[in-house]
């Protein structure tokens, strides 16, 4: 027993032989030359080049002022003449509860204050257990700490070595020589991200669009990055298990079969003169900048003027059905980001806000839409909203069941055995068609004629072709499922389009 106690006492002194980590004067960052590469789904790669005095052979280096949300498993430390022995990330945090937990079996000091006189009395107490409450042994008596609600201060002699103010990254390195030299620490962190915000000024009369692109950079890492060389990367970098990161903005075009809601109508294959690596485009910031915690920073990255653009109205009828009420057509702004007459640049995912000048020449907001990462040379259609004056009402005028004289052979069985040997039985079924006559009423309350791209969808019913007959406006089969009509509606006018479809069901 005595030997054990001696051993423990030795261990206790050795645990505190190591000096605590150097704490810098407040306000001064331990960061060195910082480079930040920010991806647009809440993820950044931080490179921090710090000049450190390194002793020969093994030493343990702590790295304060890294991102509070650091992903410790992504840390890499490199530098001349060093080898990595191990990397540690300690998150045993210093809190009143942890302090008391680690003091089990230890002696602490209690300071009781007399509530009336303010007089203080000191006592030594041993912590017996910390389970829901703290059970103390004071002399030969057992008490529960602050059970009677009276003020008692608890004073600990020291903080256990393992408890830290914040999660601490440390790397044990093996150095060939002792000197001061730069080491590069790199790691990934969520909490730093960017997105693109576009301001589109549409001049309807001239059929032109000016597009300005702004990068909006946000930092919620809990850490300031001082004087950082910043590079923004556009593209979808997927991180498995990244709880902080949202997936890329590509869900903007993930709208099933509904072509009208799609932003990219035709994907481009061109590339701009911008720097790129692999599938990513790089947007470096012109000068070093400090990205403070909880700061939103905006940086201009695109200013394209005079690209050809056109306004269009689109309406999609999901299936052969009657609408109770006329519904507004979508107002869609169409342009290209290609080199000839287009914007001439790829567009990172973000939000496009469209402005139009009012009668007094002041720009007014008319709607916004999310776009996915859009390669250069794409045809883009941005739905800005629903048109107030242009409405469409589809109506089923007539629906007939057509019993064709055709009989379809659906099954054939051979019954074997029985009295007369083998016998063949045939099952036939009458084929039924449906003929649906649709009437689309398009109204225009604007003082100028408009053209509405009217799409009748829901025509692909599987297994059998659908036929369109008797159309008052010539239709264009876009796919098996959709038929498109370009309908011109006169100023303050109304047009009724009729079409008849034969479908199997």
């Amino acid at each position, binding site marked *: 027993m005595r030997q054990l106690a001696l051993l423990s006492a030795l261990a206790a002194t050795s645990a505190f032989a190591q000096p605590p980590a150097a704490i810098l004067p407040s306000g001064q960052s331990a960061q060195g030359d910082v480079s930040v590469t920010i991806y647009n789904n809440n993820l950044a790669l931080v490179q921090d080049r710090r000049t450190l005095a390194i002793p020969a052979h093994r030493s343990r280096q702590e790295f304060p002022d890294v991102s509070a949300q650091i992903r410790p498993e992504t840390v890499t430390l490199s530098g001349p003449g060093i080898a990595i022995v191990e990397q540690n990330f300690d998150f045993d945090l210093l809190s009143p509860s942890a302090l008391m937990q680690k003091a*089990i079996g230890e002696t602490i000091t209690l300071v009781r204050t007399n509530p009336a006189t303010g007089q203080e009395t000191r006592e030594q107490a041993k912590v017996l257990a910390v389970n829901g409450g703290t059970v103390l042994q004071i002399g030969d008596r057992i008490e529960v700490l602050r059970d009677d609600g009276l003020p008692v201060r608890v004073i600990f002699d020291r903080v256990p070595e393992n408890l830290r103010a914040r999660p601490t990254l440390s790397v044990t390195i093996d150095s060939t020589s002792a000197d001061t030299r730069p080491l590069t620490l790199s790691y990934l962190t969520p909490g730093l991200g960017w997105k693109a915000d576009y301001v589109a000024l549409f001049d309807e009369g001239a059929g032109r669009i000016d597009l300005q692109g702004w990068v909006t950079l946000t930092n919620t890492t809990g850490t300031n990055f001082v004087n950082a060389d910043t590079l923004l990367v556009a593209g979808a970098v997927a991180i498995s298990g990244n709880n902080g990161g949202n997936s890329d903005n590509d869900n903007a075009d993930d709208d099933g079969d509904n072509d009208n809601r799609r932003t990219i109508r035709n994907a481009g294959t061109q590339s701009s003169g911008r720097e790129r690596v692999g599938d990513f485009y790089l947007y470096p910031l012109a000068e070093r900048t400090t990205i403070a915690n909880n700061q939103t920073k905006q940086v201009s990255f695109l200013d394209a003027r005079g690209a050809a653009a056109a306004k269009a109205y689109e309406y999609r009828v999901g299936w052969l059905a009657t609408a109770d009420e006329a519904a507004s057509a979508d107002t869609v702004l169409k342009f290209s980001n290609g080199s000839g007459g287009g914007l001439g640049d790829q567009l990172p995912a973000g939000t496009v806000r469209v402005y139009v000048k009012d009668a007094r020449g002041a720009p007014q907001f008319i709607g916004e839409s999310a776009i996915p990462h859009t390669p250069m040379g794409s045809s883009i259609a941005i739905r800005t909203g629903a048109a107030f004056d242009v409405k469409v009402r589809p109506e089923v005028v007539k629906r007939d069941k057509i019993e064709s004289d055709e009989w379809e052979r659906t099954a054939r069985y051979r019954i074997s055995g029985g009295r007369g040997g083998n016998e063949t039985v045939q099952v036939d079924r009458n084929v039924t068609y449906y003929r649906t006559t649709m009437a689309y009423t398009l109204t225009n309350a604007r003082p100028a004629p408009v053209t509405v791209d009217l799409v009748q969808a829901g025509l692909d019913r599987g297994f059998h072709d659908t036929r369109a007959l008797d159309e008052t406006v010539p239709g264009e089969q876009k796919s098996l499922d959709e038929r498109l009509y370009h309908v011109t509606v006169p100023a303050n006018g109304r047009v009724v389009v009729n079409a008849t479809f034969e479908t199997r069901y």
Partner: protein
Amino acid sequence: MAWRRAFAVALALAGTAAGAQRIVTSSAPDKVAVTIYRDPSRSAERKMDLSWLNGYALISETRHVRLPAGESALRFEGVAGGILPQSAIVAGLPNGVVEKNLDAELLSPGNLLDRSIGRRVHLRRTWTKSGRTVEEDAVIRSGLDGAVVLQTAQGYEALRCTGLNETIVYDRVPEGLSAKPTLSVRTRSPAPVEADVTLSYLSWDFDWQADYVATLSPSEDRLDLFAWVTLANSDETSFVHADTQTIAGHPNRSDYERPYPEFTRPLQLRCWPSDTTAAAIDAIEAEDIGFLPDRNIRDSLRRLPGVAMAAPPPPPPPPGMQAQQENLGDLKLYRIPEPVTVAANSQKQVAMLHRAGVKVRLVYRSDVAGAGGWLPVSRVLRMRNRAADGLGLPLPGGTIMLFAGDAGRPLLLGSGALEDKAVGEEAEVTIGSASGIRTRMVVIGRTPRGVSGALIVTSDRDRPIFYEARFAGRAAGKGLIRRDGRLVWATTVPAHGRILYRFTL
């Protein structure tokens, strides 16, 4: 860690223990080995949750003990908090083990009160106005299920229904209550002995995985592959200077159900109804209105003409310590060659492997699911785990971070997950999606046998790329091959190219 053991709780209890049984406390191991097993239900793509680790560890401790003659209870303190008591094996006791106990009845304020029913305690009352303290003897007559009723010289009273500050002071800790769950064994010895006892047990709150850092060559056909063993301990116990191993593979576990943490009964006192007129004032909730973003700073972005690249980054430094792989039955064991400290609430990384020039193929792949919009394609890294391709060693599962080596700074291309891969297996890792390469499927028509469709693939990359379309179920078309049970069309898309492929489904 060590200071907690300096004063053993059990010493205080030892004196009160009744009977001939002597209590011997072993406060800390002299030597410890930790073998960490992966959470069997965590897939490679799921990140370790450092606050809730569901893997486990085998902990083997060697403790030097002195046992008196006769029967003694040997208590092991300083074992992991997540110990699975039924897994404990105690070896090295000269006369074997009579019985093995885990004392889970914890010393908490509630249990202290509950176990003191019928005993004489001291009731201490303080008048806050005058600071006067009066202590009188009392006997606890009713436990905490309901309220505490005490018998004093004046009669029967209820604890803390007086409006005074009251607490109970005890003379001793009732038997059988311990500060932490404690494992003890009962043994008999004819004479006093000294022995080196080995205690082995399984414990929760550990996990590990491999973390791969891969750098893709500028030609996109070679990898520099480095891997860490990343192990984590979220237990409250540190293992100092431990022989540390991790195990890859899947040892079978039945009854893999983690016990919930011990519920300690809170001390809740109820009194007779005592509402007063002031009790009905509602608290006003403060509303967090968040921070105001700083939108004043505006920088601008550089626009770099063409691709201007600096020298490739230096390779990762040589490992000063590398885990060694051994075969352990049908499992793989990774041994950290030197003893290391597996601290409480910490994560540790040690190098595991490094291979340069691993042959890979970067393939862009999409699944042809149905007609839709312009969808981005997945980026797949395909390699074969064989010596001829620069690999040929067991690859335990984990995450893989892919970096581009041709930028001025390391550029993350994405991350993916790798399941356990034996030598000779093909490994495919999906690393994010490429937004510049898009595909779209269009239904052209229907035949009695199915749908005829077209797949359009566009690329904005300035080099040819490998592309694969995977078809679900039956498909027919030129050049379809079968790979891993699926029909695949593989092609090369030229730089800035657009390809159309016709098929029937």
